[in-house]
């Protein structure tokens, strides 16, 4: 088992942390886009259900 933290691990940690933040930001963007699109009544998934509901 390796106990001492190698300098390589520090750099990898930084990279992984950065990538994690990017992925979180991506999730937030997709979520935000969905909210905006659904809020405008757009048919985000292209199912046609939004138009049907609007017509009822």
């Amino acid at each position: 088992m390796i106990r001492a933290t190698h300098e390589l691990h520090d750099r990898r940690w930084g990279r992984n942390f950065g990538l994690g933040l990017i992925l979180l930001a991506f999730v937030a963007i997709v979520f935000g886009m969905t909210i905006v699109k659904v809020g405008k009544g757009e048919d985000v998934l292209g199912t046609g259900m939004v138009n049907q509901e609007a017509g009822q």
Partner: protein
Amino acid sequence: MSDTSLHSISRSAEPELKDYFALLKPRVMSLVVFTALVGLLVAPVPVHPFIVFTSVLFIAIGGGASGALNMWWDADIDRIMRRTAKRPIPAGKVSEGEALGLGLALSGLAVMMLALASNLVAAGLLAFTIFFYVVVYTMWLKRWTPQNIVIGGAAGAFPPMIGWAVATGGVSIESVLMFALIFIWTPPHFWALALFMKSDYDDAGVPMLTVTHGHDTTRKHILAYTVLLAICSLALAFTSIGGPVYLIAAVVLNFRFLVGAWKIYKRTTPQAEADVYGAEKRFFKLSLWYLFLHFTALLADATLRAFGLLGGWG
């Protein structure tokens, strides 16, 4: 990975996040962001601020992805040229395969997300831009013709057109003229730089006009493109996105740019060497302001229009 291999990796073999970011050519991305944003904001159709943000972000990522693919393909000549030797691949920080993978993945992601955020026209234009820059320019024409800068300029000219398409879902005379403005601006901008920079493109086998046809021909080309540019720039003033601010800016900037191009045209290489390429350097510096102020003026007129003030022609 075993402990043995982990310890045998040299520092240069373990890239950091910033090395991957450098593959995306951040400086080029800043121009992409600015022009795409202006193209989007001057369009007559209002867009939700979050969609503006995400669209510009994915246009920038698409531009960055094409930069990574460009670095992957050009790794051999980047190693030869001093200006590019510190890029992540020639510096040994990122492998060619990683650059290819990152470029392809981000290209797909950017086009797909732009389609979801805005529309298929904007996403299609982004996909074409990436294809044009990577395949047509980088792989095909860059090492083949001294007009490479002219063709490469087209790829950099698409962002405002994509921004416009995000808002309107189409292409119009306004977006075509914004495209033309950057497209025709690029050659005189780069050729002025090529005149006073000791370039090592020749060692790398990239045909630059200054090397293949000499400085005198390059000077003529700069003047010809500057005249064409002035026509395009002024034409944009009389479209729906033009206005008094843009017209004044265009008149002043084009006058100064034409004077600068004329001075460069009238000079000989010994004259230029005598004053250490002063006129060429001033022209290059002006070219940076030229593009920035043109797009800023468009934005200013759009803002005035939005507030019902004097901006715009109607």
